[in-house]
């Protein structure tokens, strides 16, 4: 079932065209990775999907208008998006508070959410008392506490070390499995993009367009061992080929 589509989206900043003719259909409950180098307009695209930014041309078309208000967005600069005057549980449950849910229930819901995903963070702490990985988890938990239909994640793990990244990748798959939302995951790590996704959208060119759109049919649940499988490597080769050909580099 289709969730939404991007129809011929274009966007310029100060007369410079950044995104051009982006067409994409997003299926419900799919995990879509968007891969592209710096400054290709990945964040801009998420801003347009979330409704924070208007496209110059084209449209974001929702299958059901009701879905439009159930989008959660974890920003790229997630550290700056947690409020330092709010405790962890207050940050996580802020979306509920904004819907006038009572404080006691907010706290319960935050506690439940942590329990559900076996996440161990002290709810009474302030964000500045947490590690980078914990802060990222808090930002993600805040995004999912409202049961979104679509979850936008902008390079959520790029600041984490190897081990932590692995751990959180498994966590996000677990969360995705549990909440059955559609996820659009921006990454500039090709391994990560393929490993997590049902579909990898490759962005590139100037102005940015979609280079290719590859379905990843590796069985789930996936384990880190898959990163070395023949199947995985052939996906990676295919995408690298596609990507490098637009940069006039041949493998």
């Amino acid at each position, binding site marked *: 079932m289709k969730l939404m589509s991007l129809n011929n989206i274009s966007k310029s900043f100060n007369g410079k065209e950044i995104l051009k003719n982006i067409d994409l259909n997003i299926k419900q409950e799919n995990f879509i990775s968007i891969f592209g180098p710096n400054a290709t307009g990945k964040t801009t695209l998420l801003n347009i999907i*979330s409704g*924070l930014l208007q496209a110059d041309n084209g449209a974001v078309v929702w299958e059901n208008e009701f879905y439009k*208000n159930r989008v959660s*967005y974890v*920003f790229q*600069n997630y550290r*700056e*998006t947690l*409020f*330092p*005057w709010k405790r962890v549980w207050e940050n996580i449950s*802020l*979306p509920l*508070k*904004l819907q006038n849910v009572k404080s006691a229930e907010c706290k319960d819901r935050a506690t439940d959410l942590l329990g559900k995903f076996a996440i161990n963070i002290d709810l009474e702490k*302030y964000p*500045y008392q947490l590690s*980078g990985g914990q802060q990222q988890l808090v930002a993600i938990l805040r995004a999912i506490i409202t049961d979104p239909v679509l979850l936008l994640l902008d390079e959520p793990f790029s*600041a984490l070390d190897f081990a932590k990244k692995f751990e959180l990748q498994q966590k996000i798959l677990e969360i995705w499995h549990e909440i059955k939302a559609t996820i659009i995951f921006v990454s500039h790590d090709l391994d990560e993009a393929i490993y997590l996704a049902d579909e990898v959208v490759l962005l590139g060119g100037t102005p940015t367009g979609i280079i290719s759109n590859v379905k990843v049919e590796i069985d789930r649940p996936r384990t880190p061992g898959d990163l070395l499988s023949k199947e995985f490597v052939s996906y990676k080769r295919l995408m690298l080929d596609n990507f490098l050909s637009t940069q006039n580099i041949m493998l």
Partner: protein
Amino acid sequence: MRNKFFDIKLLKLWGVIILIIVWWLIKLVFFNGTNFLPSPGETFAKVMELFITGSILADISSTLKQFGVGFGIAAIFGIPLGLILGFSKRGYAAFEIVLDFFRSIPVTALFPLFILFFGIGSSTIIAMVTVACFFVILINSAYGVIYVNKTYLVVMDSLKSTWFQKFTEVIFYEALPFLFIGLRVAVSFGLIVVVVSEMFIGSEFGLGSRVYKAYETYLITEVYALTIIIGLLGYFLNKIILILEKKVVHWKGNITAN
């Protein structure tokens, strides 16, 4: 863990000790035998005497009361007005010139007008303090809102907040550090103004009028003792605000950059 005389807490005391020694030397070298400058010992004895006999307490409480009422009125009106003004770009633009004008007038210049309206007495002193504190509190509160971190507002947009929620959940907290700067400056202004006004008015009680009376009757040691008491009062008022600020704005200076 070197010499504990250079421990940071003790270092702070060194400054005080050096000041007293320098004072004492100046007294010995230049003012020995005159009464322009009493020795530190005489002066502190006088400070003690003023407290022990209790004769200073009525003055302190009168000064504090007038300062407190003025400061309080200024804060009660200045903070909300400043926050609202900062929130509304048009509102701020509309009043910017007027505000800058009024805050550029030294309050002391308003003294005659205030006496005209409020008479010679406590109301005039309170009004002076209020005006001195009001503008600096208002303007700093407005700045706090104007310089709010825009990322936070985008986050609130993406969480579909109302403007009122933006205000209560984000803008208010973001404005707090500025607001405290306003309060601290206001404490200093307010104290200057209350003491000067008391001197002018010659009120029955109050540290300002007490200093002036001591000067008129040539009680020089008492003048120095009173000056020290006024200084200490200002110091502790500032400290109180600083401690409050540290408690309330606990996240400031704690936000890691990486």
